[in-house]
C-alpha cells in the first residue's frame, strides 16, 4: 500500500508542473488583462500600460512564469489584486466554507441517492423506479445557477430560509476555525449554529442536485447488474436470507462503481461550487474564483486553479485507496 501511495504522489508532481504551465499560459492568453480590470472605467491605454509595466506584465511570458514558479515553491502566491490580501491567506480563510458546503451537499447526495437508486433497481419498472428516473434526469439537466435562483425566489421566503451569505449580517459570532457550525458548537453560541445551518440548506441542496442524480443512476444501474450476476443466484439458492443477500452481496458489490462516482463527483463539486457560491453569495473558494475571473485577478486565479488541481489529484488517490479496501483484487494488481 505504501509503495502504491508513494508512486501516486510522485506521479502527481509532473502533472502539477504541466498544469501550472497551462494555467499560467491560459490566464495570460485571456484578453483584457488585470490592469484594465483593476483600473475600471477610468482606465486609459496609458494608465493600463503604466500599471502593466509596474506589475511586470509587459515582460516575456517565460520570465513571468519562472518568477511566479520561484515564488510559488516558497509558498508565496502574491496578493490578490481585488482584495489586496495574500492569496494563501485568502484560501485558508475561504476554504472552510467550501468544505462545509461541499460536505453537506455530498452527504445529501449520498444519503438520498444510494437508497433511491437501490429502491429504484429493486422495484424496477414500477412507479418508484419511474419517479426516480424522471427526477434524476431533471437533476442532471437543470443548471445549478438556474436552480439556485428558483430556490431563492420560490423557496427562501416561505420556508423562512436565508437566500444568501453564510451568516446573518451583523450576527456577532466568534470565528475560530471559520467552519461556522463547528465554531458555534465550540463556543456554545447556539444561535450562530442554527443560523449557519439555515444558511447552508438552500445552497447545499442546489449543489447536491447533480451528484445526487448521478449517484442515484449509477447505484441503480450497478445494483441491476449485480442482481443479474450468477453469484446472487447461487446465494439465493443456498437459502440465505434476503437481508443477507441484499446487504452482503448486492449492496457491497453494487457500491464499487458508486464509490468511484462519489470521488469523481467530489472533484466536479468544486466546479458546481463556483456557481452555487456565487448565486448564494456563499463566501468560499468558488466565490473567490468567480470574483477572480471577473476581475482578471492573476495571482488569485493561479493559486486557486493550482490548489484545485492538487485537491483533484488527492481525491483521485483517495478513491483508488478506497477501491482497494472495498475490492482487494485492486490492491494486488
Amino acid at each position, binding site marked *: 500500500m505504501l509503495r502504491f501511495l508513494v508512486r501516486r504522489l510522485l506521479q502527481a508532481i509532473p502533472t502539477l508542473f504541466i498544469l501550472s504551465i497551462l494555467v499560467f499560459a491560459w490566464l495570460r492568453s485571456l*484578453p483584457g488583462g488585470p490592469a484594465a480590470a483593476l483600473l475600471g472605467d477610468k482606465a486609459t491605454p496609458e494608465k493600463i500600460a503604466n500599471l502593466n509595466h509596474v506589475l511586470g506584465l509587459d515582460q516575456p511570458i517565460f520570465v513571468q512564469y519562472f518568477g511566479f514558479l520561484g515564488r510559488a515553491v516558497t509558498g508565496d502566491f502574491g496578493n490578490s489584486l481585488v482584495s489586496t490580501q495574500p492569496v494563501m491567506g485568502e484560501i485558508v480563510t475561504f476554504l472552510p466554507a467550501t468544505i462545509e458546503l461541499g460536505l453537506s451537499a455530498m452527504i445529501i447526495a449520498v444519503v438520498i441517492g444510494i437508497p433511491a437508486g437501490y429502491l429504484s433497481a429493486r422495484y424496477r419498472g414500477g412507479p418508484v423506479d419511474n419517479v426516480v428516473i424522471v427526477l434524476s434526469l431533471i437533476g442532471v439537466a437543470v443548471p445549478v445557477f438556474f436552480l439556485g435562483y428558483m430556490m431563492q425566489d420560490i423557496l427562501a421566503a416561505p420556508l423562512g430560509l436565508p437566500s*444568501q451569505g453564510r451568516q446573518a*449580517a451583523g450576527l456577532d459570532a466568534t470565528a475560530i476555525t471559520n467552519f461556522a457550525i463547528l465554531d458555534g458548537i465550540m463556543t456554545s453560541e447556539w444561535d450562530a449554529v442554527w443560523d449557519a445551518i439555515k444558511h447552508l440548506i438552500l445552497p447545499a441542496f442546489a449543489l447536491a442536485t447533480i451528484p445526487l442524480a448521478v449517484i442515484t443512476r449509477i447505484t441503480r444501474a450497478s445494483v441491476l447488474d449485480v442482481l443479474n450476476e450468477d453469484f446472487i443466484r447461487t446465494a439465493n439458492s443456498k437459502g440465505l436470507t434476503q437481508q443477507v443477500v441484499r446487504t452482503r452481496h448486492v449492496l457491497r458489490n453494487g457500491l464499487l462503481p458508486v464509490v468511484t462516482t462519489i470521488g469523481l463527483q467530489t472533484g466536479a463539486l468544486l466546479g458546481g461550487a463556483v456557481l452555487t457560491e456565487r448565486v448564494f453569495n456563499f463566501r468560499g473558494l468558488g466565490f473567490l474564483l468567480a470574483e477572480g475571473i471577473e476581475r482578471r485577478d492573476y495571482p488569485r486565479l493561479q493559486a486557486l486553479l493550482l490548489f484545485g488541481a492538487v485537491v483533484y489529484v488527492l481525491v483521485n488517490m483517495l478513491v483508488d485507496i478506497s477501491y482497494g479496501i472495498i475490492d482487494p483484487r485492486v490492491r494486488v494488481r
Partner: protein
Amino acid sequence: MQQLRLTRTRRVALIGLAGALAVSLSACAESKREEGAGGGTGGTMIFGAAGNPKMFDPAFNDEGETFRITRQIYDTLIQNKPGTADLEPSLAEKWESSNEGKTWTFTLKSGVKFSDGTPMDATAVCFNFDRWYNMKGAAAQSQMIYYGDVFEGFAKNEGDASGDPVYKSCEAKDPTTAVLNLNKAKGAFPAAFTLPSFSIESPAALKQYNADQVTQSGDSFTYSEYANKHPVGTGPFKFESWDQAKGEITLVRNDTSPNPAKLDKLIFKVIPDENARKQALKAGDINGYDYPSPADYGLLRNDGEQVLIRPSFNVLYLGINQANNPKLKDVKVRQALAYGINREQFVKSKLAEGSEVATEFVPKVISGYTDDVTKYPYDPEKAKQLLQQAGATDLTLKFYYPTEVSRPYMPNPADTFTAISEDLKKIGVKIEAHAEPWNGGYKDDVQKAGKQDLHLLGWTGDYNDAGNFVGTFFGRKKAEFGFDNAELFSALNAADASPAGDAHAKAYQEVNKKIMDFLPAIPIAYPTPAIVVGPKVKGLVASPLTDERFNTVTVS
C-alpha cells in the same frame, strides 16, 4: 444504572424539551437580528455593497466601492452639498484662490480632532499634501490614479507619471490656515478637493502604522497595516473591523466627528450578485443596496422599498473614429448620423425614469453646461440629404459594442446597440456588428487599437468640473476618436488652466459649443442610476456623485 434508564414518559418529555430548545434557539437568532436592525439608540444600518473594497487608505484608491466606505471614515476639505454637485464647506470653513489660481488658502474649522484624538489642523492638512507629493516607488505611484491625474506628477517622477507637477508647497500659517501653493493654475480646483482620494488622514496614525509602505510582491501589491486595519479620519464613523471571510466591513459612530452620525453602527456587506442583493433586502438581511436594475424599480416599490433616483452625473455617447473610416472625416456624415438617431424614443423606452436625452458631453448639473449648443433632433430625411451631399449613400460602418457588462451610463449595451443601429439602417447606413466582452478586449480594441468606426461608451464624473468630462474625451489626440483638431485641443487646455469661477464656466461653455459643431462623437443620453433602501430607513440623500453620507441616516 437503574436511574439512567428512561421511562417512556421521561423520553417523551425529553423530546418535547429538545423541540422547545430548538424553537427558543431560533427565537434567539431572530431577536439578535432584530436588535441589530434597529432599536438601541441610533440603530444599525446594513448596506449591500456590489464589490469588495480594496483597502481603506483613500490616497491609493480610485474606485467606488472603496470610496463609499472611506467617505464615512474621512472628511475632505470641501464636500458636495448632499444631493447635488455643488460645493460646500467641510473641514475647510472657507477657501479662496489668489495669484490667478496658483495659491489656495483654506480656513479650517477649529477644534476638530481625528478619531485617535490628535488635532486636525493646518499642520495635519499640509502633512497630507506633502505625503501625496513625496510618495515614492512605482507601486505607490501607479496606485495614486487621482493624485497623478489632478496634480500631474510627484516630487520624484518615477514610473510613468510624467509632466511638471502642479503642487509646489503647503504652509501652515496658523492652526486654522493652510496655504497651498501651485506651480500652475488647474481648472479642476476647487471641485477636485472633494475627491475622496484627497481625504485628510491622521498624520499620527499614518506614521504609526507605516501607511506609506506599499510594497510590490510579484505581480501584486501589499499595503500597510494602516490601510488594512487602522484607517483614522474625522468622518462620522470609525473603522472597527473588516471580516474577509464574511465580506463585512463594520464601522461605529465617531463621537468626536464634526458631523457625528445618528446610527450606532454601519455595516457594509459585500454581495456581488444583483439578484442576491435584491433577495437580501426583501428578506430584511440588509437595509439597502446600490445599483438596482431599472427593470426592478416597480417591483421594489411595490414591496415598499424606497428607490431613490440619483440626478444624472454621467453621459452615454456614440463614439466615431475618423481615422478608421475616411468618410467619417466629413462633418456632414457625422451630422447625418446624429440626425438619424431617435434618441428621444431610445431614452423613453430603454432607460430608467429620470434619464434625459444628452445635448452635449457634460451633464446638466456641471458648471460649464450650456443650452446654447447646436442640437441634432431626430430628422431622418435631413440625415439622408446630408449623406447624399457628402456622397456617402453607400456607407458601411463597423459598430463595436460591449457585452457582459452593465455600467451606470449603459445598463444594457445590447439593447442600446440594437436601437441605434436600427435607426441608422433606416437612413441607409449598413451596420457591421462587432460584439466583444467588456473585460475581454472591448476597451483595448476601441480605445487603444481604434479598430471601430462607431462604438458605445460613456463616463461617470469624479467631481464637478467640465474638464473631467470633455477634457478626458477630447483633450488630445486619441485612438478612440482618431481626429487631430489643434483648435479644439488648445481651447480645452486653456479652459482647464482658467481660474475657478465664472470665467472657468464660461470657457467650458464655449468649448461645449465648439464640440457640438465639430461633433467628434454623438452624445446620446444622461442616464440616472438609483440606490434603494428599505422602508425603515430615513434620511438618506441620493447623490449624483454616488457621494451618499450615512451620518444623516436613521433606521427605525
